[in-house]
């Protein structure tokens, strides 16, 4: 889902960068306020962890492999969508500059898709569905699925606006592919939340895994 350079013309890419920068500034403010200021190094190391998580090969039912995004996981555990924005921004900078995975000019768009959309949809769908299911696992699954699916749709819309991929087919192919991958993202998010809530309940934003 990492859009490469040249697939979004420069003026549009600049607009995405500006929007992304606003969210990055907001997430920095979140880090200063909510993490009692100096805890930023902790989040930086966690970002390295999310990078490693994204590198884990995940089996997809028909034999190929995929990768996780981890935005919903980070947002749920740390209890804020801005955690995902902050972490995914760091991850995308490293992926873009060191590995060429996702372009530089379009990094703004990638941060919006994976960090902002992934984080906000992941976190708020988890919060929204929690009262319905009364357990953290089904909402975590939905959060993981939605964070990936909506981010993929946003990616298709951006490419359609850039004129580099037709809207209908983009929405269909990106949507279908990520709807399937999303099941795995959701499943892993739910299992991982279970593990974290059992092994280290204190690091969940709320100790019981229940959103406050």
């Amino acid at each position, binding site marked *: 889902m990492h859009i*490469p*350079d*040249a697939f979004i013309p420069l003026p549009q890419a600049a607009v995405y960068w500006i929007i992304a920068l606003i969210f990055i500034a907001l997430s920095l403010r979140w880090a200063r306020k909510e993490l009692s200021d100096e805890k930023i*190094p902790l989040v930086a190391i966690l970002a*390295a*962890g999310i990078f490693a998580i994204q590198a884990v090969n995940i089996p997809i039912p028909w034999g190929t492999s995929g990768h996780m995004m981890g935005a919903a996981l980070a947002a749920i555990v740390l209890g804020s969508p801005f955690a995902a924005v902050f972490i995914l921004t760091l991850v995308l900078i490293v992926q873009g500059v060191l590995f060429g*995975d996702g372009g530089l000019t379009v990094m703004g768009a990638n941060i919006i898709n994976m960090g902002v959309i992934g984080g906000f949809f992941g976190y708020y769908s988890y919060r929204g569905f929690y009262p319905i299911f009364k357990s953290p696992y089904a909402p975590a699954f939905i959060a993981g699925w939605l964070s990936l699916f909506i981010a993929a749709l946003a990616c298709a819309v951006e490419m359609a606006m850039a004129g580099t991929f037709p809207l209908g087919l983009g929405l269909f192919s990106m949507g279908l592919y990520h709807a399937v991958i999303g099941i795995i993202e959701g499943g892993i998010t739910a299992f991982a939340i279970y593990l974290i809530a059992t092994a280290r309940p204190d690091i969940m934003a709320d100790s019981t895994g229940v959103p406050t």
Partner: protein
Amino acid sequence: MIEDLFFLEKQTYKKSPVHSLDARVKIIIAFAAIIAIVAVPYSTVIYTVGAVFFLFFALLWAASGLSPLVYFKRLVVILPFGIFLIVFQIFFKNPYYENFTTIATLPFGIEIYAESVQFATILLVKFLVSVSFIILLSSTTRTQDMLEGAGRLGLPAEFTLTLGMMLRYLYVFGYMIRKMTQSLETRCFNPFDRALPYRYRLEKVAYAVGTLFIRSYEQGERTYMAMLCRGYGRESHLYIAKKPLERKDWVFLTAGMALVIVTPVLAWTRFPVIL
């Protein structure tokens, strides 16, 4: 991608005129080249610009003394999504052209258009050039130098500190992943083994992911405590010493920037082959 990290680090520790250039110069040239190639509108002018830029890249790569295999090995990892998008272009009518000529008709009424093939080629040139410059930058510059270079170029202190910490721990987690994979392998667990139920495999992989999360969080806690003990606080930042650019850096920067700016401008004004 974690294994690529170690591979990449080996390349950056080699010695060559390109490796020894100041990181700032390399960052500026690579970013400028990418912005320039993206800024050229979608038109056939890109062939000339792309050829000149690629030649520039190839010269630098040759000067860096790295094997072309290193380049191709890294390129193969990056290409898939971009190539997928480019290959499918040939079947679409895109908004950058008005008339489309069919050059081939496939079953199910799928048509290939000459203009779309041209558009796909344009995208391919832009994509390859921008990816090549990133590969050059990251294969010849150590991550620490790149970070300090970015700091000297004005990247805010919040980012140099956090990115610096992140980069250092990437290697730690790289080894951690390697160990976890190896211990799963010694127990004959293969996540792609179809003989095992899918849910079981997913669960095990998910536990590995959850463990990585917890271990990185705990590493963060330990490091944070250790930093506090050493006087870390609100005003802490990565110390970056001032370092003036040497003469060879200035020469390369001026020549490189001139090439990156002049080529597209000349190509655009001298042959206005607008679609």
